[in-house]
């Protein structure tokens, strides 16, 4: 479904990513872990067509990502540690805005359905600025799921969330895992990452230094391996 070949990204003489090779199949849930500055967000941005690789290629469902960006973006739902929501618009207006930007049919019905799913239907007419961090994150998930994307990219989704919001998030996300969908998440939370994902990749200094299936490793071994390969950095 997603094939990344010899991908590198440099900013001047600095390489943010170097020789990345990954093959991600439908139904996979990958976590990308690594210390700050390892290149995790850059990798997600390149997959989402927001940044051009300096060399190499990404093939998504048979389409080269730099050839048909709009088509690729239509297939992607992106959730970051920021909500991408407008504080002065209501929950419903935010989702309407994004549904129009995605040229979504039956938007009203879809918005109602998705707001009920994340438990925000009764707050749909409230301004986003009145929402708690956890509610904003739930609405942000609704925004990303509006188009029912088959690729979901999560960039540090647990940042700034309390334990209860994280629990809600995990519950919601477990229901999204499906054989037709790919989920790629960057995180610092090794335990949660290992709990959710089917595969992992450790990124250090722009290179993938290890990748495997999560069922091949337990948490303590994973933590040791992470420390060993990244020099113990967080």
């Amino acid at each position, binding site marked *: 479904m997603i094939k990344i070949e010899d991908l590198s990204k440099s900013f001047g003489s600095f390489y943010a990513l170097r020789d990345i090779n990954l093959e991600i199949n439908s139904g996979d849930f990958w976590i990308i872990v690594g210390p700050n500055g390892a290149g995790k967000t*850059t990798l997600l*941005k390149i997959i*989402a067509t*927001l*940044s*051009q690789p300096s060399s190499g290629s990404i093939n998504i469902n048979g389409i080269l990502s730099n050839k048909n960006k*709009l*088509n690729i*973006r*239509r297939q*992607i739902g*992106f959730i*970051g540690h*920021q*909500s*991408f*929501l*407008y*504080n*002065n*618009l209501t929950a419903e*207006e935010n989702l309407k*805005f*994004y549904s*129009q*930007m*995605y*040229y979504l049919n039956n938007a009203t019905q879809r918005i109602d359905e998705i707001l009920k799913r994340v438990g925000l239907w009764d707050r749909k007419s409230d*301004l986003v600025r009145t929402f708690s961090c956890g509610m904003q994150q739930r609405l942000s998930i609704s*925004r990303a799921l509006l188009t029912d994307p088959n690729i979901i990219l999560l960039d540090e989704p647990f940042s700034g969330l309390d334990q209860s919001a994280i629990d809600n998030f995990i519950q919601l996300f477990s229901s999204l895992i499906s054989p037709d969908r790919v989920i790629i998440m960057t995180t610092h939370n090794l335990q949660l990452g290992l709990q959710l994902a089917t595969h992992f990749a450790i990124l250090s200094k722009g290179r993938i230094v290890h990748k495997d299936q999560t069922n091949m490793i337990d948490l303590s071994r994973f933590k040791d391996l992470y420390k060993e390969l990244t020099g113990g950095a967080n």
Partner: protein
Amino acid sequence: MPIKAILTIAWKDILSEFRSRETISSMLIFCLIVVVIFNFMFEPGSTLVRQMVPGILWVAITFAGILGLNRSFIYEVDQGCLLGLLLCPVDHSMLYLGKMLGNFIFMVIMEVIIIPLMIVLFNLDILSIILPLALIILLGTLGFAAVGTLLSAISVNTRAREILLPILLFPIAIPILLAAVKATGSLINEGTIADARSWIKILAGFDIIFLVISSLLFEYVVED
């Protein structure tokens, strides 16, 4: 379809501004201060006023416009919304045009309020030339918003964005401002559009050039 995206973005900006009233109110207050201070200096209805009004008008429009342009992308980067916009399956030049349209509308709303006030305060008899004057102001505002929106997207990610935007904008917008001030001056002082016609053509030409170049460059400005 692309038109729908442009209108959706502009409508979102207008709705958001309607709720906060932060941008237009600061633009209006600034304009009002400029106009009132200049009104203290000159005798209303005098020849000197007619000579000075084009300059006063464009000083008020451009400086107040900077306030609005500065805020335009701050709203987008606040919650990472710019990233959300860039992820939409819409050509990035359409995002630029949507933001530009929003900025243009805010400036026009401000002008609709401030220009009648100027006519009253400076005792100007310009009713016979109001339509060509409106055309010049709209063309000048369009060009200014076209360049300003692009430069606002450039400056928003810098630490000194409030200072950087005017520093970048004014030198680049000189052709627009020069043509707009000259056209306004010719029209108000001569009372006919004849002398202003060549300046209006130059203004329209620069509008097209700046709109096309800015919409093409926007993709590179927002990409990493």
